[in-house]
Every structure is written in structure tokens, then in C-alpha cells.
């Protein structure tokens, strides 16, 4: 079992924080660049009050992308100018905190980062705001000295969705 170095902890926390900053700054290409091509992105639905959908294969998700291409679809849609829900884009501000890093399967080039997040959303059309909040679990992989996201699971605690939700709101 390898140890987790302070340098690794710093690098992976920086990655998770940078991801949120990219979303708020609408740097979509930089955001996509943090994911491996086969990255899984999963926002499960709630099955009841305290049970999440257990499997994206058998149960319903709010968002499930089994590859980065699914996230690229969403970025394409936002940029297309063809989606009423995406223009004008709301302004968002993420805060990611309580992040705890652990080694994934004892390998020094794989870690899991668990964290809490909030995202304030300001809707320009209606001049109203709301907050989504929940937790993240990132599985990160180090390839040639660079950490990238191999999977991201987002838990949304307040799942009564006001009008719409997209990747940049969570």
C-alpha cells in the first residue's frame, strides 16, 4: 500500500477546485480537458427520501454520460444558440469544500476525492436565484504526471428542480 503524498493531495484538490472555476467562467474546453475520454459522469435521481438510484443501468438518473462525448454534447448544445434553456446562460458560482482524498485500490496513480459543493445560480431572464447543493465523488487517474477525471458522481440533495438543470449548475 503506497502512501498518499502531500503533493498528490494538493494536486488533486487543485484539479477538483479548478473544475468548478472552469464551469463558472464558462471555459468549457478547459473543463472538458480535465476528463479522460472514457470518463463517466453520473447524477443519479433519488429513488426515495434517502435512497439514490443504485445503478444507471437499471434505475433512473438525472444525467448519465458513459463517456466524455456525452458532456461534449451538452457543451455543444449550450454553444449552439439553439436551446431556449441555455440563452441567456445563468451566472453560476460554485464552492467546493470538505474535500477528503484517499488512495483508490492502493495504487498511487489513482485517488478518490470526496467533497461537498454548492452552486448559486442567478437566472438573468427572471432576475431570480437559487442554490443547488450536494456532494461529489471524483475518481482521478494520473497519466504521465497529469491528473484527470475518470469518473464524477454528483449527488444533488435538493432535487426539486426549478425549471431546469444542466452540467454547469451542479
Amino acid at each position, binding site marked *: 500500500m503506497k502512501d498518499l503524498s502531500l503533493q498528490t493531495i494538493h494536486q488533486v484538490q487543485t484539479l477538483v477546485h479548478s473544475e468548478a472555476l472552469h464551469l463558472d467562467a464558462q471555459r468549457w474546453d478547459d473543463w472538458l480537458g480535465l476528463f479522460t475520454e472514457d470518463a463517466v459522469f453520473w447524477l443519479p435521481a433519488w429513488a426515495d*427520501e434517502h435512497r439514490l438510484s443504485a445503478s444507471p443501468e437499471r434505475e433512473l438518473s438525472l444525467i448519465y454520460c*458513459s463517456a466524455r462525448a456525452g458532456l461534449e454534447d451538452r457543451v455543444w448544445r449550450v454553444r449552439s444558440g439553439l436551446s431556449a434553456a441555455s440563452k441567456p446562460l445563468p451566472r453560476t458560482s460554485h464552492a467546493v469544500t470538505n474535500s477528503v482524498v484517499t488512495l483508490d485500490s492502493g495504487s498511487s496513480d489513482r485517488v478518490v476525492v470526496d467533497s461537498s459543493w454548492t452552486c448559486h445560480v442567478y437566472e438573468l431572464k427572471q432576475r431570480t436565484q437559487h442554490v443547488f447543493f450536494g456532494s461529489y465523488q471524483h475518481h482521478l487517474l494520473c497519466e504521465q504526471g497529469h491528473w484527470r477525471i475518470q469518473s464524477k458522481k454528483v449527488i444533488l440533495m435538493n432535487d426539486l428542480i426549478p425549471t*431546469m438543470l444542466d452540467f454547469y449548475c451542479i
Partner: protein
Amino acid sequence: MAVSLWVEVGHEYMLTSPPGDVRNGSDLIDDRPQDGVFRVHRDAFRDPAAFELEMQRFFERGWVFVGHESQIPHPHDFVTVRIGRSPVIISRDGQGQIHALHNSCRHKGAVVCQNQSGNKRAHLCPYHGWSYASDGRNLLIKDKAEGDYAPAFDLDDHHLQAVARFGVYRGFMFASLSSDVPSLEVHLGDVRTLIDLAVDQAPDGLELVPGVVHYRFRANWKLQLENTIDAYHFASTHPSYLRLLERRASMPQRADAPKTIWQSQNKPKEMMGSFGLARGHAMVWTTTPVENHPLFEQRAQLQSRVGAVRTQWMMRTRQLNVFPNLQIASSAAIQMRVIHPVSVDSTEITSYCLAPVGEAAQKRRQRLRQYEDFFNPSGLATPDDTTIYEDCQRGMASGAIEWQQGHARGMQRLVLGPDAHAQELGIHPMTSVSGTFEMSDETVFHAMYRHWRKVMA
């Protein structure tokens, strides 16, 4: 536009001052078939007094959808819902019988069952500890013997009060707060044949896939009822979704994205049609390329089980409104959408994915992905609808404009009564229309608003 009288407090709403003149339903519908005119007044969407009347007449005095039987499969399973403004428990008792019960303790009124769903033999009121069995019977009045009650106390029963009417059709559960309603069979009418088309596509019936989606938009509930049966909006509201499908199709390496029913190698000219049914119900159907339909591979078995005509109908998209609060969308997946009006300009939706019992893993996966892409408020199509409902509601604040111009397409094609398509299905709609997809009929709304006017008058 009148100032909103309703103040939202959590899921409930309170009247801040008495409603003013309640607009008569017939003032809000301009129905002159002889002149080729059918118009709906914008106050139907923006006047709090009209909303109050809708709550009383449709939601508190009529049949309302309350859930699907597969939500409570086992003895003592329950779900809690609202009918109009009343909290209700739908509970299966130990013998398997389902009860619709007012979720309010007979003692002081507290909501007895606080959970959205679960399994309980007894429901204990958190206030003074009265308890009730899963069939609503009172089990305990705490310290009754010591309470020095007068004999008159037991002249009333102490059970959870049953909702006046309850009925189930093929797993779909309905209830009415008033006993003064026709039978559920009469209320549903031809809707039963259309529910059969959804249920019979699976040999063992349908079940709810675990995972419930909740969303809310700041617009009138009837915009949702209209939108689902509005073929006209599809191409102009959802170009990002349709272009995305083309984009995916052009990327042969995309193993992550399932093909959808709207994709095809050779696109035939598609057709659409509509049925305006009695008591506010309606359906719109469209043909789509069948080769990516979930039923395509089993069509031979299906034909031998349900016949060629019904097989063909099962592979068409069908958007069914069961007035006032249930929508069943059968396209790439089957969606069950439940509408909860909150106030004149606020609506909550609960959305479920229905799927065949015992569906193969690969089929289930494909169904889920298509459902999530299209029907979720976090998907690639529904957010454009909900956002635009809000645009409509904000636009309708222009009180100077009285009448919508959105119920007129198809007037020249209208058939009073059943057309050949309806006859094929053996149903008897008030109005039928069919034509090209681009014709995108709007007369489908007429029967709904005629029912609305009658009940609101």
C-alpha cells in the same frame, strides 16, 4: 392582469385576500365553429380567481390521478400525495386492498404520515399519539379510558377519513374528493383503450423504474397540458436536441449514445393526428421511423399477441392527456408525468419512467438513456419546454392582450367524431384530425377547453 393573490408557503399556498369576480368559464372560451373561430382568453392562464375555481371544480370535485399500483406492491406499502390542496395517503392494507385516506389526524388535524413513501402497519400521529392501521382504522386513542370523554364522543368514528371515491384502471390509480362524480369507467371513457395500448405492449405489464424526478416551473399548469399534445412546437423548440441526434449519428464511434426513434436512414414523410376526447382528455399521435423503436425487434410476437393494427399503434408516438393531471407519453420510452398546480403561475411536476416488467438489461439501458435525454428537466429537450412556459407566462402579463391565437391550426381538416384512425382503434372522440406532421393540428385542444368551460361555468 390581476395581482397574484396567492402566496406560496412551501408546497402549499395561501390566499392573501378574497378572490374578486370569478370569471365565468364561458367568458374565457370563444367557441364559434360556424365562424371558424376557437380562442382561449389569457385570463385562463393568469387570473388567480380562475385558478381558484379550477382547484375547486377539477381537483377537489373530480377524478384525479394519484399514482401507479407498482409504487405500493406489498402489504402496508404507502405513498403520500396531494389531491388539490388535501394531503392524502394511498395505502395498501394487510389484505392487499388499497385505500385512499385523508392524511390528517382526526384529533387536531396534523398530517399523520410524514414520509413520501414507505411501509407501515400503523401510522402514529406525532402530536398526541393517536394511531391508525394501514386501512385507516383507528387503533389507539392515547389514554382514552382516563380521558373522561362523554359518550357522545364515540358517536363519530375516529378512523382516518376515506377519500370519497377511489378506483384503479390497469394499475393507474385515481381518486375523487367528492362522491358526486361519474364512475371511473365513465370518466376515463376511451382513455382506457389508449392506456391499454401502453400497458399491453409488455406481456407482463408495466412497472415504475426506481428514481423519481421532481421539477417546478413558474407558469400555469395548462401550458404543460397543452405542450405535450402540441406537435407544432417540436421542431422550433427542440432544434438543439434534433441537431444533436444528427450530430451523434454522424459520429460512428459513439457507442455511448443510443439511436432514437427520431433517427432514420431513409426518412419517410411522417404523419400526425389527434383525438379530442370527452371529459377533457386528448391524444396526439405521430408516425416515426420504426427501426429504432424498442418494440421493433419483437414486432412479430407482438402482432400475434395484440394484432397487426394495435402493434402499428404501439410503435407510433402517442401523447395522452388524462385530464386534469396525468400525461402518458409513449415514444422512445414511456413517461408518466403528474401535474400538481401550485398557484396560477406555478406548477410542480413529478415524472416517472414506466418500463415493461422483466425487461432485458440492454433494452432497459437504452430506454433509460432515451428517457433521460428527452424527458428530464436535466436533459436535452424538456428544459427548453419549461423555460418557454415561463416565457409565455411572463409574456401573458401584458394584460392588454386578451386572446391567444394558439388553437386554430387544423380547423379546416377537423372531423367531428371519429375519423378512420379512431375507428381503427374503436374509440369515439369528439374531434379527430390527421395530416402531415407539419400540419401540426391545434384543434386537439378544443375538446379539452369545451370540457373546461362546461365545468367552470
